[in-house]
């Protein structure tokens, strides 16, 4: 079984979209779930959130940012190349509420996870307000798609090149002051999710975040992805990935994410050197 890349697109600098041929996985995927991929025999297993799926065409869409060795290697693959392994759908689907006003907050690549959830929530009859943010306009992705499934869309950039000059939390605070909100769903960098949790807590608005710790198998076997939620240890891969933001120990999550920082640097250095060599030699 191989998993072919049907389409590759650079959405923004260092942010890529891949459409992968995986009919069985596509047929079962739901918003909020993820897959684990391995590029080749020597590869590591990395989780990627399912950004979209097309059951008829048998396609899974993922979007990722180049960060470490594996994502850089993934970024240089082309349409027609294939991945050695793809497993999913993993994790629990997002719980879809009814008759609710829901604010989605998406940051960076997290915007692409917001999209299928907002679409599903909208379909179920909820009112969708979306806030999407990026460092700068050129890094803002999927604005049109998110817009298409939102009743109202707000944009923020850290440098003010588009929309509100500032953070997603500024806009969120204003919304919470002005109107009733039943649920906030925040997906993006850990610092953003933590900031959102801090903003919504005084308002007493239920808030959900999607966590991204280090994983290996993704089926509950190793416990690498353990997080503390409400004082209890949970496995993100099988108990999550979505949790109550007000219960999550974000400090622990951030510290655990640094576990392999040194090794990641070694691995990336080796890869960049080999890439360099490939070009020159």
């Amino acid at each position, binding site marked *: 079984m191989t998993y072919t890349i049907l389409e590759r697109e650079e959405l923004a600098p260092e942010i890529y979209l891949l459409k992968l041929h995986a009919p069985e996985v596509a047929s079962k995927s739901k918003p909020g779930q993820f897959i684990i991929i391995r590029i080749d025999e020597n590869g*590591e297993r990395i989780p990627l959130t399912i950004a979209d799926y097309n059951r008829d065409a048998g396609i899974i869409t993922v979007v990722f940012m180049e960060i470490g060795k594996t994502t850089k290697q993934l970024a240089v693959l082309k349409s027609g190349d294939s991945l050695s392994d793809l497993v999913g*759908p993993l994790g629990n689907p997002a719980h879809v509420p009814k008759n609710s006003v829901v604010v989605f907050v998406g940051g960076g690549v997290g915007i692409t996870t917001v999209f299928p959830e907002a679409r599903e929530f909208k379909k179920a009859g909820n009112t969708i307000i979306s806030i999407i943010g990026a460092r700068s306009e050129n890094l803002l992705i999927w604005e049109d798609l998110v817009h298409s499934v939102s009743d109202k869309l707000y944009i923020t950039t850290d440098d003010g090149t588009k929309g509100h000059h500032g953070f997603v939390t500024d806009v969120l605070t204003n919304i919470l002051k002005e109107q009733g909100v039943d649920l906030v769903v925040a997906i993006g960098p850990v610092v953003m999710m933590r900031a959102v949790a801090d903003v919504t807590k005084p308002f007493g608005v239920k808030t959900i975040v999607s966590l991204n710790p280090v994983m290996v198998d993704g089926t509950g076997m190793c*416990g690498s992805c353990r997080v503390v939620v409400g004082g209890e*240890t949970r496995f993100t891969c099988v108990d999550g990935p979505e949790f109550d933001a007000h219960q999550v120990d974000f400090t*622990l999550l951030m510290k655990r994410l640094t576990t392999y920082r040194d090794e990641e640097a070694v691995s990336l250095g080796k890869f960049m050197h080999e890439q360099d060599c490939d070009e020159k030699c």
Partner: protein
Amino acid sequence: MLVKRPEMPEQDPEKRIHNFDEVALGYTEEQATIEANRCLQCKKPQCIKGCPVEIEIPAFIKNIAERNFEASASELKRANTLPAICGRVCPQETQCEIECTLGKKGEPIAIGRLERFAADYELEKGVQIPEIPESTVYRVAVVGSGPASLTVAADLARIGHSVTILEALHEAGGVLIYGIPEFRLPKEIVRAEVDFIKKLGVEIKLNFVVGKLRSVDELLTEYDAVFLGSGAGLPSFLGIEGENLNGVYSANEFLTRVNLMKAYQFPDYDTPIKKGKHVVVVGAGNVAMDAARCALRLGAENVTIVYRRGEEEMTARIEEIQHAKDEGVHFKLLTNPTIIHGDENNWVKTVKCIKMRLGEPDESGRARPEPIPGTEHEIPADVAVIAIGTTPNPLIPSTTSDLQTIKRNIIPTDAECRTSKKGVFAGGDVVTGSATVISAMGAGKIAARAIDQYLQSLRFAETTSTLDC
């Protein structure tokens, strides 16, 4: 009559702690023949009674004694699909060898070593594929690809049923691949035995998570029967402060990174692992020994096994404990961790422990360990591995209708491996909790017979219903 068996040639401990190559090197033809000739060929062999997969032990040994090595392997394979694996990891000393008549006056015959010898001989010469009868119309799904599943699959394929193994990971073999290290069970051996099972006609679908991609109920619409051999993959933790510090691993994670993902070859393989200088391993089963010996090979300066009971109560095979000792693993017995302390960056720094003494027997019949007040002490550590056991994964029970489970997601069965759900059978660690490779294979054998009977009853039901019309 020789009272002793030939010594097993082994890699020198000084040398082997720097590599992941196999420790036990296997008997030569000469050694195997000498040892096989010690077998008394008892008229009423007691050894067979101790074998969960019912190998005709005297028969395969006789073939070795007569230097019919390939015939010996064929004899083994009639009963046991995975002889090269069992010859390496079975606890023969408490199963078949303990029954051996020779053991009364000297050393029992080295059944495990001879099994390994014959199996390796065949692997080297090229494996014979037995003739498969014409295929039946029945299809069986086997969930997981560990020892129970491989045995069920092989036995059913040999009687002509179509078998599909569904494995969640990217490689088949279950615990044989992700759990048991290369130096004890080379992955090449596992691949060769899995390959044999494929050649029997078994289809293996990798990256297939039952409970996610298909539920058991859905499988029952595509297959006539389902066997659950998904093992005990959920790691247990101690439940003490500090277990979420960086550098604290479940044994499952530590071994999966090393064995399945080849982290010992990082950065040639992408998966990293923390190479601790001071490693503490909690627990004293085979998994704990494996983790401790992996940590040494990753370059640890010292590795300490911490166990709350005593030497007698350690559950690992004596041979594995001896190997660990020979390699320089420290044992702190009657010692229990109470807190894991970390530094300001959330990294493990020390494991605080307390001395224990053995009190009255508990419900398991083993002496209950009790802390001795005032004996707290700290063991420096930058990596800690928790190897205190595993339980079945909840994924399958939670997604299957009408499947009875008992505590900790154990799936109970009757003596024929039948679960509470019609057409669904189970065996191995998912039924027993974490146990041995061979007990899982024994269950696989029983399940294969029960599944075959069940499929035949379906045929009977179909025939009678046709007659009714």
